[in-house]
């Protein structure tokens, strides 16, 4: 039977204090913080990080990857294909975007379960990432957060079985956004709760219990989505849910991460449960999906992996000005620097393995790993000058140390100053690249770093993604 075989999560390290937002608008603070994607992060980069986290330590090789999001960077061009190529999945991997609904992640999950159960796929990664925007001074400006999660669905070494599911759709307009909208629209909260969210959730849960002849008492944990902490509490109250069983929604520290939110909560729940315990898992959006998830003996392996709750901790507070800048919500004074040349599509295609998964080469003659920092092909070995005698060598998963660094006040960046470094990989090879997610006073020669996939800049409609180094966890 299909089940969850691995889980990964990713949250940006930046947190915006809601009091800070409230102060700007002399409004009321919902308290706590929201996770904010770095200036160089978006749905794709966060999905990549969560997928890589999901793949760490997993022996299964995915043959499918779905990306669930309501905030894909391209309106036409598949996000899942970018994530699959960056996470270095084989070419035959089936890729799909699931989008336009907050329920996209569980819709993708159901499709993955069906594919695995039908035998048409062995291991499908479902990644979910969102960075949704609430307009200034609104509830959602405070409640929404950025984040990502990924789950692998397979039938071997399952850590949690999907015992059953029940879904309903509901053409209900509570949160929506047109092609022209930057911010999410919404309507009266009482109407949403009483006509949309609460009855839909109650209906899907009772439908699931009826279908499988179960009772609420059969579940050790209840994991469910809500738009915000208030709505989350409202359902618990309405359904008289046992507070001990309700999974924390992280809305206080992280915010509502959209399609990623249910998966993040589920990941945290799985971390705590014992074999044979059951989770009632419900996602909402244009209807609802409810699942029965049963923990297996294999859960230990997942629980030994780094703690989800640790990964949810923010490290760097930002101010509202940074938030506006990073989200491109305020017009900044134009740089007087001349514009960079247009990105060459042919060279980006030729260099796709360097750009996507930071592939360099290793010389078969002398063993030297090497990579060209602007992506050009290496035909002659930098060390022994052997020609065309290389094997591909992936740098993206290698750890390194900061050999030297430069903190640049002139560098065009949405988070000045620019931080750059000479990275010496522990297993050989060097790259000079940008650094990100740094606390400036901690940048030092010898600092351990790891590579992270980020957005370098946006130019003429192209998101120029590449790898940067960041302080190692």
């Amino acid at each position: 039977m299909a089940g969850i075989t691995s889980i990964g999560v990713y949250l940006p390290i930046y947190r915006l204090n809601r009091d800070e937002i409230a102060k700007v608008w002399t409004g009321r603070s919902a308290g706590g913080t929201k996770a904010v994607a770095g200036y160089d992060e978006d749905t794709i980069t966060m999905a990549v990080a969560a997928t890589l986290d999901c793949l760490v330590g997993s022996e299964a090789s995915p043959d499918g990857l779905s990306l669930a999001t309501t905030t894909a960077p391209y309106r036409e061009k598949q996000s899942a294909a970018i994530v699959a190529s960056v996470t270095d999945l084989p070419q035959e991997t089936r890729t799909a975007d699931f989008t336009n609904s907050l329920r996209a992640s569980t819709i993708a999950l159901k499709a993955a379960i069906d594919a695995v159960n039908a035998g048409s796929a062995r291991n499908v990664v479902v990644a979910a990432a969102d960075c949704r925007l609430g307009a200034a001074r609104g509830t959602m400006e405070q409640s929404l957060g950025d984040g990502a999660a990924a789950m692998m669905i397979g039938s071997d070494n399952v850590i949690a079985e999907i015992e059953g599911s029940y879904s309903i759709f509901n053409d209900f307009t509570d949160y929506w956004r047109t092609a022209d909208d930057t911010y999410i629209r919404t309507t009266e909260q009482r109407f949403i709760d009483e006509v949309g969210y609460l009855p839909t959730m109650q209906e899907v849960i009772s439908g699931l219990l009826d279908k499988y002849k179960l009772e609420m008492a059969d579940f050790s944990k209840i994991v469910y989505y809500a738009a915000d902490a208030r709505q989350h509490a409202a359902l618990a109250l309405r359904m008289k849910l046992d507070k001990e069983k309700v999974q924390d929604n992280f809305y206080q520290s992280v915010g509502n991460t959209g399609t990623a939110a249910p998966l993040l909560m589920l990941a945290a729940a799985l971390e705590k449960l014992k074999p044979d315990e059951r989770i009632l898992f419900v996602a909402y959006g244009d209807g609802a999906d409810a699942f029965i998830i049963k923990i297996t003996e294999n859960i230990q392996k997942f629980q030994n992996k780094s703690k989800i709750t640790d990964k949810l901790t923010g490290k760097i507070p930002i101010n509202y000005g940074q938030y506006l800048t990073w989200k491109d919500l305020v017009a900044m004074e134009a740089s007087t620097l001349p514009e960079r040349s247009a990105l060459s599509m042919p060279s980006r295609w030729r260099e796709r393995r360097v750009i996507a998964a930071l592939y360099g080469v290793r010389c078969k003659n002398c063993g030297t790993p090497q990579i060209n920092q602007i992506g050009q092909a290496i035909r002659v070995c930098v060390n022994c000058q052997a020609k065309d005698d290389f094997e591909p060598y992936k740098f993206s998963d290698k750890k390194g140390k900061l050999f030297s660094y430069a903190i640049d006040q002139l560098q065009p960046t949405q988070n000045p100053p620019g931080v750059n470094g000479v990275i010496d990989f522990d297993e050989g090879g060097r790259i000079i690249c940008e650094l990100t997610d740094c606390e400036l006073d901690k940048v030092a020669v010898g600092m351990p770093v790891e590579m992270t996939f980020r957005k370098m800049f946006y130019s003429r409609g192209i998101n120029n993604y590449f790898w940067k180094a960041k302080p190692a966890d």
Partner: protein
Amino acid sequence: MDGIRDKVAIVGMGCTKFGERWDKGVEDLIVEAAYEAFDDAGIGPKDVQAAWIGTVFSGISAITLSPLQLPYIPMTRVENMCATGSEALRGACYAVAAGICDIALAVGVEKLKESGTTGVKGPSVVGDNQEGSSGIGPGYSAPASFAYLATRYFHDYNIPPEEGKRLLAQIAVKNHHNGSLNPKAHFQNELTIEQVVNAPIIAWPLGLFDCCGVSDGASVAVVTRADMAKNFRDDPIYVKGMQITVGARQGAMEQSYDFVHIEENVIGSGRAYAEAGVKDPRKDISCAEVHDCFSIHEMIVYEDLGFSKRGRAREDIEAGSFTLEGDLPVNTDGGLKCFGHPLGASGLRMMYEVYKQLQGKAGPRQLKNPHLGLTHNLGGNAGTGVCSCIIVGNEK
């Protein structure tokens, strides 16, 4: 392999005032520098048999030289980053040395102030801002690319950053003093150590005054055969050694590179010394114009070029060895610090100063009896670069 030593001589040079030449175009700067050089050599444009023009951003092809109205002669535009001006001179010298022509012109020009920015345009990563680039190189500025050196130098030699900054400041103060004596310099003001260390940080530890200026300028040399040189003047300057040395990104790709020296500088100067017959550069060289794009690089150049022992430039700086009164004055005209760095012009501007020094015509900056001078450029940055090292003398 014979080398260039004593085969060609420079018999005329010209150099514009460097600075923000808003009212002058590339054509004005070329004509201004070239006619000073023609007058200095006692020739006219019609005597020129071949010409090289070095510019990075200010012109494509040798048609850039059209303002001189040279009569249908072979002309070539060259580009080799910050060594572009020196590369133009090399083309002229090699043609004369090869016997292809007797009088050749080397022109270097750049109008950096046309780019609309206070710096060299584009990211400093070699090759990342040209047509056909994928644009994935880091977007740091030129100062940052040299800050790597300072960070690592301070680290390796245990120099506390604040002490290191004061050390580097002495280089800026020295060059500004020299520039204050030079009417052609862009900046002719003295600086104090305090001004330098308190200036806004550009790329730690480099502050504003650790960085060279951004200027417009042109410089021109007239080159002829060494055996014909005295037909033009009594005091020609003979080319003794002339080397261009180009890296292949080894330092950016291999962990063996230490970021406290520039390999191209070491190899290039070594070759130039061998070609020129220089045994002990600290003793043999009378004056040097080196690439002080950023103060840390001038300091590292002292060691790379053998003026100071490895890791001990600090002692020489503190002893004042490279001031006008020192035993090896460096950047006597004010250097890139005071002239700025119009890329195509810089190499020939340096040669202009060495030429004048060796002729005893350097005015208030004149050194006592110099006989051998050196010019040095480094284009690119730590990790990969283009080094030019030229040695000239006033005796054959």
